[in-house]
């Protein structure tokens, strides 16, 4: 069970998160900075609820707003070229 991948973008397993949380007794935000879970391509939109759930199990930290995990995912990821408006590159 522990070898299950929580964050697929950065390949962080449940074991990694559990061990780091136990070792450092740290917050969800610190877990993110230490393991890179939730810092990948998808912006943490996929794994953040799982990371929060694991943290609640291991350290009892409830996902709140006091020390945010600092995930601010956009509603839809948009490339800069879309914002700029498509232009022919010359």
């Amino acid at each position, binding site marked *: 069970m522990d070898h299950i991948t929580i964050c697929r973008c950065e*390949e962080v397993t449940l074991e990694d998160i559990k061990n780091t949380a136990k070792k450092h007794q740290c917050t969800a935000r610190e877990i993110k900075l230490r393991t890179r879970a939730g810092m990948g391509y998808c912006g943490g939109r996929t794994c953040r609820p799982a990371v929060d759930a694991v943290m609640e199990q291991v350290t009892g930290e409830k996902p709140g707003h006091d020390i945010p995990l600092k995930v601010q995912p956009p509603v839809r990821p948009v490339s800069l070229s879309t914002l700029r408006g498509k232009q022919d590159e010359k």
Partner: protein
Amino acid sequence: MRNNRRIVDHPVLGKLSDRKEITFTFDGQTYTGYEGDTIASALLANGVRTLRVHEESGKPRGIYCNIGHCFECRVNVNDEPGVRACLTEVKDNMVVKSGRVLPSPLVSTVNDTLPRTYAEFIEQQEDKKGEV
């Protein structure tokens, strides 16, 4: 075994209607799909499940959420990187390339012993002195 892994007669959705066949390439190999397919569904019908590999470890990746949420199926389409195969409709003569392993100059260590605080740093220095 090409382009035939489809449900032709679905109990609820009915029979698969005849659609225009199109060809596209994936990593240099030519595949056929139907108009209206997504890149991911057209490749799945051809038996291709690995759409990219993880940039660092090289582990295979394919369709995961299939709703454009997770970016696990991102491919390179006509030299545009990071295109989600599950949302993008496949077009005739499209050139699709899979994600590759990128060079990684900094190999991370699992057992990091880096000090978190100055106090820990001093502690580690003391330990090192003891070893010598």
